[in-house]
């Protein structure tokens, strides 16, 4: 399955790109493992926020085919 991954703000600068499409074997993958694949084995930086399908969630969340996953720093408000 293919998962769309998006990065915002300083996370986009850090990754050097705004989004990835990550190919995953199997029906599901945790956010933690998805991040490892997308980042080339790095640990998820402390205080990173996660959204799956535009709702906040945590790193244990099981991502499924067609989900959109986003990583970003704490929001600063408008």
């Amino acid at each position, binding site marked *: 399955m293919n998962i769309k991954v998006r990065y915002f703000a300083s996370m986009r600068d850090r990754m050097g790109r705004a989004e990835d499409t990550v190919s995953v074997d199997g029906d599901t993958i945790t956010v933690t493992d998805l991040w490892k694949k997308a980042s080339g084995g790095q640990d998820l930086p402390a205080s990173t926020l996660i959204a799956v399908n535009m709702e906040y969630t945590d790193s244990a969340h099981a991502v499924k085919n067609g989900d959109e996953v986003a990583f970003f720093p704490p929001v600063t*408000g*408008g």
Partner: protein
Amino acid sequence: MAAQTHIKVIVQEEALDPCQATEDYQTSDVATGKYGGVVTFVGTMRDFNDGHQVSEMYLDYYPGMTERHIEKVCEEAAEKWEVMNILVVHRHGAIRPSDPIVLVAVWSAHRANAFDACRFVINYLKERAPFWKRETTPQGQRWVEHNTKDPAAEAAANNTVGIRRTA
């Protein structure tokens, strides 16, 4: 209440003219002669922050998620206070000092409800809405940091809004 409240949320890159936006919306969407008052908040970029000069600000956002979460907060306000219409217009992208950044306008039969709902929505926008600020100062560009010890707790708080949640 929520079913009777009309809510409109716009996140735009174009310059914001708060007066024009309020009047256009009022003409097209607000029932004439039925509301007693409208409370508006217009937030404007200041030319200083934390003691240093800021010449430009860039606001990043998450298209789709940002609007959806602002709408949820407007719905929550409409459940708490009887209001007729809520309009939110928020800038993203490059913003210069004294540019209007955000407009919140709330129409209501009774002014107390309009004040409370407007304040609730702008507090959310300023504190928890999915925006990220990058400032340009004499020392260069920097993302404004908001350090979080516990991202899971912050995520939960952001989902529920709950600035004045009673449960």
